[in-house]
């Protein structure tokens, strides 16, 4: 309950800061992910399968030109969100399954653990976005009037996705029925973000006067607020 009390964590030394601990956890996760490639494979395969299914059944000419900016934004975000939900819970569930949860609790401060896992999830989301978004644009022939704004929407949307799901992942790792629970718990929290991101992508692609910058700001605010609240609440669920 008192994360600032000194001398409680084994590896906590004078020189270790929140950030250095977080980065250590982040790199450790990346290394173990690089060995097994479990999370990244499942997320990417899920995304590619959905993308192929969407692209095959709709193709690049089925939808009217005027409808495209909106409908393509909806499809893109559905693919991104649900493939993210299929794999992001791994970051904490794998600790639980490997039995390393308690060691992690002892070896770093809670906020540092949260930040490390958040960085890891954001890395996963970055990889997902870098592969899926260009593939989607090419396969579907998605014409985007403001690429800069569209890219910013992808980045802030991804940030929000990571920010809104990391705390939920930490909770469901300690609960029963983990797989289905993660989507069920995350989706209501993500709904405002998804609505914003779809609207922002549509506006960036359509290219109306204000483009999608207000939506980019809303998504960024969502990410900042979710990260702040999660940092405050995380010690409560971590110290149990």
């Amino acid at each position, binding site marked *: 309950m008192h994360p600032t009390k000194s001398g409680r964590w084994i590896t906590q030394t004078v020189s270790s800061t929140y950030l250095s601990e977080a980065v250590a956890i982040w790199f450790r996760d990346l290394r173990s992910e690089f060995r097994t490639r479990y999370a990244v494979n499942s997320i990417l395969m899920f995304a590619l399968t959905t993308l192929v299914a969407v692209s095959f059944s709709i193709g690049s000419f089925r939808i009217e030109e005027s409808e495209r900016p909106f409908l393509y934004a909806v499809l893109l975000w559905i693919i991104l969100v649900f493939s993210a939900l299929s794999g992001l819970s791994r970051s904490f569930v794998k600790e639980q399954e490997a039995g390393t949860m308690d060691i992690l609790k002892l070896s770093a401060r809670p906020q540092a653990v949260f930040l490390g896992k958040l960085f890891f999830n954001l890395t996963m989301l970055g990889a997902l976005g870098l592969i899926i978004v260009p593939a989607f644009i090419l396969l579907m022939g998605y014409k985007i009037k403001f690429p800069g704004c569209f890219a910013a929407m992808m980045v802030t949307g991804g940030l929000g996705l990571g920010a*809104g799901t990391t*705390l939920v992942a930490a909770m*469901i790792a*300690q609960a029963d029925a983990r797989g289905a*629970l993660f989507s069920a718990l995350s989706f209501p*929290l993500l709904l405002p973000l998804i609505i914003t991101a779809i*609207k922002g992508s549509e506006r960036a692609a359509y290219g109306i006067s204000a483009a999608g910058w207000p939506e980019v700001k809303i998504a960024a605010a969502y990410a900042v607020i*979710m990260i702040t*609240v999660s940092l405050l609440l995380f010690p409560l*669920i971590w110290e149990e």
Partner: protein
Amino acid sequence: MIYKILLTIWMNLIIAAVFLYVEPAAGFPGEVSRILFFHVPTAWVATLAFFLSMIASCVYLITRKVNADFLAQSSAELGFLFCFLATVTGSIFAKATWGSFWNWDPRQTSIVMLLMIYGAYFVLRSAVPDHEKRRVFAGVYSILAFCTVPFLVFVVPRITNSLHPEDTLNPASPGMDMKTLIFFLGSLCAYTGLFVWMLRLKVRMLRLLDREQRAFRSNF
């Protein structure tokens, strides 16, 4: 005991009066506007209950008193019930005035969002076996979910315009006549009283259940 009987009589009077005494509001087809006396109080009670649940969750996380969690859980369950009733009555009103039961009006979107959040809240509660952990998780989740609600309030009106009646059925506006206003406020009070009664029953039930479970466990 006496206030429960008074509440029963009061509610009977309200029901009889809003159908037989109050005239329907102008600007709405037929008798549709009478749903005001049932729809708005349920929505108000749902809001009150969810807010109370959030506050009780905070209190639980700070003090770790079990009673606060009982209050949070009971309040969330009753809020869910009243939220569902508000959705159904609102949907009936939508069919009668706008022509379809469901058309993703911002009000409908936000109420579905609330139902989903608290649906997930109950799923989380049922999925954590450890009592202490379950209470903490539920509290954390309800605070986290509460932080996303302001976004919905800002975001959704940007997408579509609302058809939800605001002015004609707003108590503060001159659109509502005196008779309607009196029975509207009376109905609000009756529903709030009903909520308090049900809430106390639910809290007592949870307390008994908890006690039974503890007694059962201590037998081993």
